């Protein structure tokens, strides 16, 4: 009986209530398109216009006319590249900031200045630097997404318990052993929090970067359909971007939880 009750509660918490919330927003959307925003396509119109893209998610009919998951895949690959690039620079930078007070004093101010710069500002600089849209996009993603990794890695290194540092000193661990056996494992939970936040930003940036470069992907598709006045597809893109971002975050927090307990 109690078992059944508990099961019932979790169904309410994780299925029924979220559905209520989603339905509520759909109703508001419908009301808005029926009343004060006549240019906003209503949910049915959106579904009709999007059906082809959802039902044949991997179809390729032209450069900027492809199934929604195919576009998503392009974007994900781009994000993966830019994010990896961001981590490749962010992790060592974070380690240095955490280890050396001098390094931190020298570079923390410039990091705080670069951190809030918008992707819309980095992209043109990337284009100037690399002369091609693709590397400029990766540069933008890396530049915007690396900061949480940098700051959390540094925090993780600074938070290593004094006990472990004493052990390392008594055992006279070499610099490399200190890094691999003490610093990184100890900072790992912090670093994963950074990785998760960075991935979230990388996914945010992808849309902006594809819009400006016109590269095929969810962001590029969104911008093209806006220019072609097919507003139903804007909504399709927004929903897709949101869902993918949500799934990425869930995935990362599962990995993060594993490292926390491990």
């Amino acid at each position, binding site marked *: 009986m109690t078992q059944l009750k508990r099961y019932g509660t979790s169904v309410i918490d994780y299925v029924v209530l979220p559905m209520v919330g989603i339905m509520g927003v759909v109703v508001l959307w419908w009301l808005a398109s029926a009343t004060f925003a006549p240019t906003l396509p209503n949910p049915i119109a959106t579904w009709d216009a999007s059906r082809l893209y959802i039902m044949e998610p991997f179809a390729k009919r032209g450069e900027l006319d492809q199934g929604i998951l195919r576009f998503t895949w392009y974007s994900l690959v781009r994000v993966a590249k830019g994010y990896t690039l961001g981590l490749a620079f962010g992790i060592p930078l974070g380690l240095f900031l955490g280890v050396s007070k001098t390094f931190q004093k020298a570079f923390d101010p410039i990091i705080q200045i670069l951190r809030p710069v918008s992707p819309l500002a980095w992209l043109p600089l990337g284009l100037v630097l690399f002369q091609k849209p693709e590397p400029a996009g990766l540069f933008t993603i890396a530049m915007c997404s690396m900061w949480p990794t940098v700051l959390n890695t540094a925090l993780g290194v600074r938070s290593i318990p004094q006990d472990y540092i004493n052990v390392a000193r008594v055992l006279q661990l070499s610099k490399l*052993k200190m890094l691999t056996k003490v610093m990184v494992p100890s900072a790992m939970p912090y670093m994963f929090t950074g990785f998760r936040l960075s991935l979230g930003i990388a996914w945010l940036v992808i849309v902006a970067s594809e819009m400006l470069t016109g590269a095929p992907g969810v962001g590029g598709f969104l911008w093209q359909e806006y220019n072609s006045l097919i507003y139903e597809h804007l909504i399709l893109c927004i929903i897709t971007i949101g869902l993918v971002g949500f799934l990425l975050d869930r995935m990362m927090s599962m990995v993060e939880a594993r490292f926390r307990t491990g």
Partner: protein
Amino acid sequence: MALLSLKGVSKGYGEVGKRTEVLRNINLEIDKGELVAIVGYSGAGKTTLMSMMAGLIRADSGTLMFDGKPITKPGPERGVVFQNYSLLPWLTVYENVHLAVEQVFPTWSEDKKKEHCEKYIAMVSLSAARDKRPAQLSGGMRQRVSVARALAMEPMMLLMDEPFGALDALTRATLQDELAKISAAANTTMLLITNDVEEAMLLGDRIVPLGAGPNASLGPSFAIEAARPRVRKDLQHDPFFKQLRTNVVDYLLGTAKAARRKDTAVQVDAVTSALEPAR
């Protein structure tokens, strides 16, 4: 010549002006093969004293010599067992010991290192838990790993900072007996820092009391000329041990009273100077 010698060692913490002197004028000599127990109040500066001997912190003044050389940093010739075990939680029992062995004997073959690690893990009877992580072990088992790690470095001297302080009474008794056996077999010079007079009497060749702080300093040595292995029961009933305990405890209580008096004296001074009319 003494293996470890401290002459006029002092250490304080804090900024100039608000400085607290923790240890003042510490003098101590430990000979090769001795097991010296330092007994003192919590907060008297026992850990500070050990950290200086380990080379983790530097003294403000005085000299610390080990094997004829001044102590400037930690070294493999001085093994340390910390109160809170200080095992790396992401490594197994074997890996924790192996990490130490690897640093101290880098030229050994992998087989030899493995054999060496396993010998010391067996010495503390943890062979069955070889591949477990610290989180899966009880407090007593963790401290055994810590002892095995320190011993596996084959140090000339073992420094132990309240090694059994965090354990329950039964586990503590077991580990004390094991340490007595290990110390008899290995004949390593050991320094045991503890707040437990019984423990000191059971294991030590002599007891050196550390007076109450601030400005704690070491008292006279109390030699323990009793046969080994010692029996726990004798500590309660043997007249020699009873007298020894009384002497050590009396000394410590005396220093505490003196420290309080000094404290009150300072307060009285402050009050009288405050009452003095401004000139």
